[in-house]
């Protein structure tokens, strides 16, 4: 079964790998390029995928962080992400998964309501980030943030672990979500 597990491989020396999953190929490529441009003490590896499960035949390093990119303009991207989520081991959701919603800026193009994605992230207990990946400055800022997140998830930042970070991020979320 090609379920992705967080700890089934040994970590590489000073390497941090991120997997970006989403149907919007151009946006993912641009985000990957922005991330690779960032200065980082660890060696970064960015993998892109349209959906899970990933093909078994490829020899890939241990994945430290998975980011699901949902485009609010396209219901298809949300459906594809929802289907991919089934192919992840539950242990991944302890801080190694994040959701990224793009396209919220152009409200007239949105076919998914923002709350749908908020609910999805809340159900999977993972952080939700909003960023308009089409705008370069926002993309660069988000790339910086993701690199930092990735370093923590790979264990390269002393004193903070992925689970630590998850509880920190959840504390700053809107407390009203707990009522919903």
């Amino acid at each position: 079964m090609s379920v992705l597990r967080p700890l089934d491989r040994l970590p590489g020396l000073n390497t941090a790998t991120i997997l970006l999953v989403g149907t919007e190929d151009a946006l993912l490529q641009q985000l990957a390029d922005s991330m690779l441009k960032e200065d980082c003490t660890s060696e970064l590896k960015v993998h892109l995928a349209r959906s899970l499960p990933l093909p078994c035949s490829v020899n890939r390093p241990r994945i430290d962080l998975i980011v699901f990119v949902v485009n609010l303009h396209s219901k298809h991207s949300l459906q594809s992400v929802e289907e991919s989520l089934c192919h992840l081991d539950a242990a991944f959701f302890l801080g190694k998964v994040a959701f990224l919603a793009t396209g919220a800026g152009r409200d007239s193009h949105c076919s998914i309501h923002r709350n749908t994605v908020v609910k999805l992230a809340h159900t999977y207990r993972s952080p939700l980030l909003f960023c308009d990946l089409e705008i370069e400055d926002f993309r660069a800022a988000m790339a910086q943030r993701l690199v930092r997140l990735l370093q923590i998830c790979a264990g390269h930042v002393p004193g903070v672990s992925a689970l630590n970070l998850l509880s920190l991020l959840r504390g700053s979320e809107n407390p009203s979500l707990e009522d919903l």
Partner: protein
Amino acid sequence: MDSYDAPELTPRQDASSRLKDFFIGATPLQKRLESVRKQTSFIPTPPRRKIPQGSQLQEDVDPQKFAVLLHKQWTLYSLTPLYKFSYTDFKEYSKLLTAFIAAEKKKGLAVEVGDDFNIKVIFSTLMGVKGTERDPEAFLVQILSKSQLPSEHKEGKVLWTGWFCCVFGDSLLETVSEDFTCLPLFLANGAETNTAIIGTWFQKTFDCYFRPLAISSFNLSWMAAMWTACKMDHYMATTEFLWSVPCSPHSLDISYAIHPEDAKALWDNVHKTPGEVTQEEVDLFMDCLYSHFHRHFKIHLSATRLVRVSTSVASAHTDGKIKILCPKYLIGVLAYLTELAVFQIE
């Protein structure tokens, strides 16, 4: 950006802010799981809207008056409440507005109120275009061209029409004080220059603000579902959808036409709760159309943008253009548009 601070994320289940109830997109299963986890008695508030009923026109209204509202393409604007607007001063407003338009047209020359112009502005009330008793009366503004010959007394040609209305605008009416008249929806038909001039006059006189109302794909799919759900005796037009595929250099347009009775049959299969429409039903209705299209053409319509919806009840375009075809469901269509306008104002 205002879209991030939407009022629907209020912590308390406030009965008066119904808007938020319409936009929560979680499945009932997720909500039930959540309530079980927290062991709280959680009253679910799934999003639902009433299907427009046909009999909301008041009995004493002349249906002929609505002829001016139907079968015309209207551009939508949202309007903030008008300050110190009075329904009795229509003659005054007509004179002032006529003078203003003439002045704008002949910029730079002095114009006196009461002069003879070749255009005439008429304000009139539209009786019956409202949802509840609390809604303010709708009114209509028309620019007519006056004929130059004094012997001819017949009405000139209508150059521009615009009307203001409020249908079920309770959430806005509650927040506003006595001096304000709430008519959040403005519809205009005619030359853009005239719309701009009239808009400027209203903004200066009543301290309000116009904003073009765009309809998102999300709302268009709701409209498609609600209008397909309306019971009609005979269908005047096919149900048609138009999608825009973003690709370079020119975007592709995909048009999908369905026989209206087939669309109604599909809706009847999807529809479970009587009298109301829920988010799940809308999603299922649209998903059926998408999967049918995908099976035949291998194109994922859900990855494209819905741009236009056209049914026998009304037709709407994402740029904020609407054409109402059926007088029976006029109030229902306006109710949804008012809700969108109020949401944009808040």
